[in-house]
C-alpha cells in the first residue's frame, strides 16, 4: 500500500452505471405505487381518513308530556339509568357481560339475548344499551368498579312516568322499548328507544316523539373528542293536553266501585271526551320498566280483563237502549205516530212462539212516550215487525251504529247491526222472525261499544250532529254525520227520555236532580237467553257470567252546558239500579260543588 505504487484497480463487475440503473428501476416501482395510492385511490383513502376521525352521535329529543284538561301532568319524563357497553373498548366482552349480570341481577341468558339483538344495530364503537332501567344503588355499585371494566358505562336517559297510574291507563296507554318489528318498520327508531304501545301514546306517537338531532365530532386515535359540530338540532315532541278532567275521572272510578264496567262522558256540543273510565285497570308504569312474564300472564289471565279498554274495545248488546233508535226509525218511517196506541198484555206471539214483555202483567195502552218511559217490549216487538230488519238496520247505521267513532285510540271495535244479508254471509243461515223480535229490543246480534252509544246520545241532544269523540282539548269539533230524523222526532225522543227520569213509572228515577234537565234510557242486556232455573231469581243469586249487563245512557243539561253520559256495568244486572247510580255520580261531579266550572 505504498503511496507511490499504482493502485491495483481490479475490474469491477458492477460499475456505477449498473448501480444507478438499479436505483432508477426500483425507485420507479415506488413511484408507480405512490401514483396508485395518491392519485388513483386518493378518494378512497380520503374517505377512509375521514371515517377515522369523524363520528356521529344522536341527540335525543324529549318526548312530549301529556296533561289533563286542568293542566295536571299525567305523562312526564323522569331521568332513568341504563347500563351500556362499547364493544370495541371491552377487552373480553363475555366476561364483561358476566360482570354486568352480577351487578344488575339480570338473567345471564336474557342479557346475552338482548346483547346479540342490539349488536346488529350499533356500531362497535358506539354505546350499546344492554340493561335499561337500573336503580340508583346499582349505578353507584357500577361506578365504583367501572375503572376495572373498560367499555362499560352508565347512561342517563329519560323514562316515561305516569303519575296517575291506573287512573288513566287505558286512555294514555304506555311506552316501552321498541321491539325488533317496530325497529324494522320505523327507521327513525333506534335500539333502546321507547315507543308508544297502547292508547294515546301509540295513536299520537308521531306528535309526541319529536325528531332526533345529530352531532358529529372529531376524535383522535385514542378516541378523545376534539370538537363537535351540530348537524341537526333535536326537535322536542309536542306537549298534549287531554280533554279529560282528572276529578271527573276519579268520580267515575269511585262510582264503579271496582266492578267491571265503564263510564264515558262527552261534551255533547263539541265531542270532547271528559271522562273515559274502564274498570278494572292496571298500572302502565310496570310496562315502562319492562314487565315480567309472570306479571304479564297474570294480567292476561285475569277474568275481569284489566287490559281491555272497554269503552272502545268491547262490544255489548245494547238492550233497551236500542229502543231510542227504533222509536226514531218508527216515527220517521211512519209506522207509528206519537199518538199511536199499542196494547201490551205482557205477551207477543210470532207464529207459534210467544215473546214476553219484561213486565209480566203488561203495560196496557202504550204510546211512544210511555214506550220509552217504561221500556215496553211489546210496543217495540210490534214496531220492529212493522219496520222489518232492513229498515231497522239501515236506520241504526245512519245513527252511527256499527260505524267507527274515529277516536284517537288504537284497536277500536265497530260492533254489529245485523241484517238478513249480514246473517247469511256471516253465519250462513237465513233470517227468521225471531231475529226481528230480538233485534227490536236490542238483543240478538246487535252489539255496540259504549263510546258509540255515547256519541249517539250526544247527537240526540246537540241537534242531531254525530261528532267525532275528541281526546285532546285543542281538537276542533268534527261533524261526521246527521241523525236521519226530523227535529220534531228528536225532541219527542228527548222528552220521553226526560220522562224516564222524572215521571211516575220511569225506569231511571234515581237520576232525578233538581235544577238540571236530565233524560235517560236504561238497558238490561241479556248475556244468554236466561235459563228457566234463573228466571225468577234475584241478580245476586245468578252466577256472575250469566248475569245481565246493566246500561244507562243519559244526557244532562244546565246553563247551556250539555253532556252525554253512558254508564255500563258488565254483568251488573238491572240497568236502572246498577248503572243508574254511576251515571248519577257523574252528573253530581259535573254540576255539583267542586265539579266542572
Amino acid at each position: 500500500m505504498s503511496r507511490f505504487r499504482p493502485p491495483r484497480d481490479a475490474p469491477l463487475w458492477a460499475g456505477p452505471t449498473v448501480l444507478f440503473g438499479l436505483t432508477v428501476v426500483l425507485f420507479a416501482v415506488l413511484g408507480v405505487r405512490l401514483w396508485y395510492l395518491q392519485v388513483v385511490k386518493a378518494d378512497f383513502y380520503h374517505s377512509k381518513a375521514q371515517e377515522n376521525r369523524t363520528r356521529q352521535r344522536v341527540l335525543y329529543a324529549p318526548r312530549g308530556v301529556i296533561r289533563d284538561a286542568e293542566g295536571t301532568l299525567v305523562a312526564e319524563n323522569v331521568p332513568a339509568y341504563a347500563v351500556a357497553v362499547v364493544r370495541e373498548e371491552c377487552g373480553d366482552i363475555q366476561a364483561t357481560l358476566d360482570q354486568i349480570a352480577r351487578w344488575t341481577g339480570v338473567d345471564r341468558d336474557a342479557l346475552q339475548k338482548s346483547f346479540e339483538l342490539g349488536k346488529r344495530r350499533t356500531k362497535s364503537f358506539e354505546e350499546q344499551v344492554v340493561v335499561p332501567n337500573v336503580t340508583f344503588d346499582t349505578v353507584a355499585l357500577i361506578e365504583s368498579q367501572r375503572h376495572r371494566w373498560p367499555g362499560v358505562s352508565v347512561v342517563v336517559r329519560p323514562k316515561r312516568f305516569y303519575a296517575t297510574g291506573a287512573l288513566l291507563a287505558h286512555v294514555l296507554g304506555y311506552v316501552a322499548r321498541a321491539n325488533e318489528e317496530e325497529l324494522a318498520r320505523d327507521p327513525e327508531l333506534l335500539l333502546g328507544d321507547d315507543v308508544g304501545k297502547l292508547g294515546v301514546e301509540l295513536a299520537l306517537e308521531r306528535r309526541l316523539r319529536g325528531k332526533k338531532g345529530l352531532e358529529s365530532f372529531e376524535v383522535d386515535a385514542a378516541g378523545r373528542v376534539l370538537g363537535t359540530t351540530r348537524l341537526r338540532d333535536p326537535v322536542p315532541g309536542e306537549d298534549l293536553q287531554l280533554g279529560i278532567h282528572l276529578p271527573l275521572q276519579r268520580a267515575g272510578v269511585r262510582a264503579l266501585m271496582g266492578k267491571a264496567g265503564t263510564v264515558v262522558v262527552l261534551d255533547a256540543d263539541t265531542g270532547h271526551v271528559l271522562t273515559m273510565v274502564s274498570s278494572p285497570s292496571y298500572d302502565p308504569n310496570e310496562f315502562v320498566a319492562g314487565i315480567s312474564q309472570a306479571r304479564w300472564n297474570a294480567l292476561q289471565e285475569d277474568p275481569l280483563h284489566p287490559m281491555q279498554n272497554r269503552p272502545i274495545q268491547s262490544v255489548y248488546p245494547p238492550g233497551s237502549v236500542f229502543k231510542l233508535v227504533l222509536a226514531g226509525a218508527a216515527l220517521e218511517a211512519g209506522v207509528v205516530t206519537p199518538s199511536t196506541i199499542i196494547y201490551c198484555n205482557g205477551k207477543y206471539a210470532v207464529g207459534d212462539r210467544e215473546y214476553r214483555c219484561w213486565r209480566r202483567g203488561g203495560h196496557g195502552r202504550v204510546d211512544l212516550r210511555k214506550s220509552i218511559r217504561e221500556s215496553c217490549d211489546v210496543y217495540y216487538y210490534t214496531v220492529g215487525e212493522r219496520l222489518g230488519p232492513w229498515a231497522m238496520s239501515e236506520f241504526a247505521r245512519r245513527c252511527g251504529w256499527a260505524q267507527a267513532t274515529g277516536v284517537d285510540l288504537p284497536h277500536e271495535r265497530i260492533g254489529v247491526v245485523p241484517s238478513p244479508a249480514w246473517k247469511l254471509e256471516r253465519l250462513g243461515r237465513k233470517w227468521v222472525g225471531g231475529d226481528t223480535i230480538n233485534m227490536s229490543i236490542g238483543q240478538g246480534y246487535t252489539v255496540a261499544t259504549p263510546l258509540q252509544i255515547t256519541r249517539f246520545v250526544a247527537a240526540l241532544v246537540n241537534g242531531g250532529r254525530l261528532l267525532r269523540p275528541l281526546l285532546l282539548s285543542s281538537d276542533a269539533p268534527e261533524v261526521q254525520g246527521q241523525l236521519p230524523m226530523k227535529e220534531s222526532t228528536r225532541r219527542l225522543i228527548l222528552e220521553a227520555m226526560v220522562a224516564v227520569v222524572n215521571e211516575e213509572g220511569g225506569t231511571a228515577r234515581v237520576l232525578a236532580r233538581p235544577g238540571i234537565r236530565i233524560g235517560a234510557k236504561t238497558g238490561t242486556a241479556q248475556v244468554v237467553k236466561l235459563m228457566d232455573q234463573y228466571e225468577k231469581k234475584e241478580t245476586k243469586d245468578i252466577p256472575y257470567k250469566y248475569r245481565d249487563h246493566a246500561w244507562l245512557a243519559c244526557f244532562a243539561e244546565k246553563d247551556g252546558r250539555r253532556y252525554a253520559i253512558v254508564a255500563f256495568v258488565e254483568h251488573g244486572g238491572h240497568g236502572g239500579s246498577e248503572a243508574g247510580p254511576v251515571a248519577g255520580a257523574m252528573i253530581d261531579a259535573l254540576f255539583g260543588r267542586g265539579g266542572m266550572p
Partner: protein
Amino acid sequence: MIDRRLLSHTPWALLFLFVLLVGAGLVNLYSASSLRFEDGLGVESFFRKQLVWSGLGLLVFLGLLLFHYRHLRALAWPMYGMGLLLLVGVRMFGKTISGAQRWLDLGPLHFQPTEFVKVTVIILTAKILARMEGSLGWKELLNVLAVALVPALFISRQPDLGSALNILLIGGGMILFKGLRPAVLKTLILAAPVLVPFGWFFLKDYQKQRILVFLDPTADPRGAGYHVLQSQIAIGSGGFWGKGFLQGTQSQLRFLPEKHTDFAFAVFGEEWGFVGSILLIGLFCLFLYHLALVAEEAKNAFGKCLAAGVFFYFFWQVLINIGMVLGIMPVVGIPLPFMSYGGSSLLMNFFLLAVVVNVAMRRFMFKR
C-alpha cells in the same frame, strides 16, 4: 493537510443534495412531533434532539474531512472489534424500548450501536474486497460475507431483524459491486428459492406475523395490520397536492403509529401529496447517483468499495423503508435516512457522507 485541490474536488452537488434531505427531514419531523393538544408528554423534544444530533453530526463531518480516508484501512479491524463489543454490551446492559434491547443509555441521549456496526462492516468489507483481485470465488465470497454475518447474527437476536438484514444486504451489494465468478453467481441464483423457505423457521412469531400481515393487511386491521393500513390511508388521503404542512389528519390525530421514526415518510406523503413525495424520491435518486459517481471516480479500489458500501447503505434503507410505508414490503424496523428520528442513525449518515466526500476530494491526489 489542507490542499487547495481538496476544495476544487469537493462534490458540491452531493453536499447540496445532502443538505436538502436533512432539511426536509427536520421539517417533517417538526410536523410529526407537533401536538394538537396538551398532554404533557413533550414529544416535541424529538425535533430538538434531532437538531442536537445534526449539530454533532456536522462536527464529526468536518473533523473527518481533515484526515485522509486511507487511515480507515488501518482502523478497520479495531473499529469492527469495537462494534462487536458494543453489541455484546447492549446485550448485557442495554436499555429496552418496546420489547427490543437496542440502545445504550448515554445520559440524555441513547446510542444505538447497530448503526455504528453498519459503518464498521462497510469499512472492513471495503478493505478486504480492495485486496482481492478479479471476481470472487466461493472461498473469497464466504470470507467477505462472514464480516457481515457475525454482527448480523448478534443483531437478529436483539431482536432487530430489519437491521440484521440490512447489514447482510449491504455486504451482499458490495460483493456484487466487486463481482462474483459466473459459476458462483449462477449457483446462488438457483439456490435462492430453496434457501428462502428454510429461513422461515429461524423467524420469531412476531416476525412471521409481519410477513403474513404484509401478504394480507386487512386480516387483522386493529392488530398487526394496523400500521400498514393506517400508513396507506395517510399516504393515499394526501392525494395529488397533499393536505399541507401540519395539516395531516392521520398523523396529527395520531392514527399513524411510529410516525416520527419508521413511518415518517407517511407523514410526508400525507402533508405534501404525490408532488412532494415524488420530489423527495427524486432527491434520494439524485443523491444515490452522485454516490455512484464517487465510486466511479475514486482513485483506488478501497475508495471505490467504500463509496459503493455507502451507496448500498442508503440504497437499501430508502428502498425498504418507503416500500414498507407504501405497503409493498413487509414491516421491518428500518429507518428512512435523514427523515426518521434517530440520533445514532443521523450521526452515521454524517459520518458515512464524510467518508464519501473524503474519497471524492482526494481522488486526483496522486495524478501529477
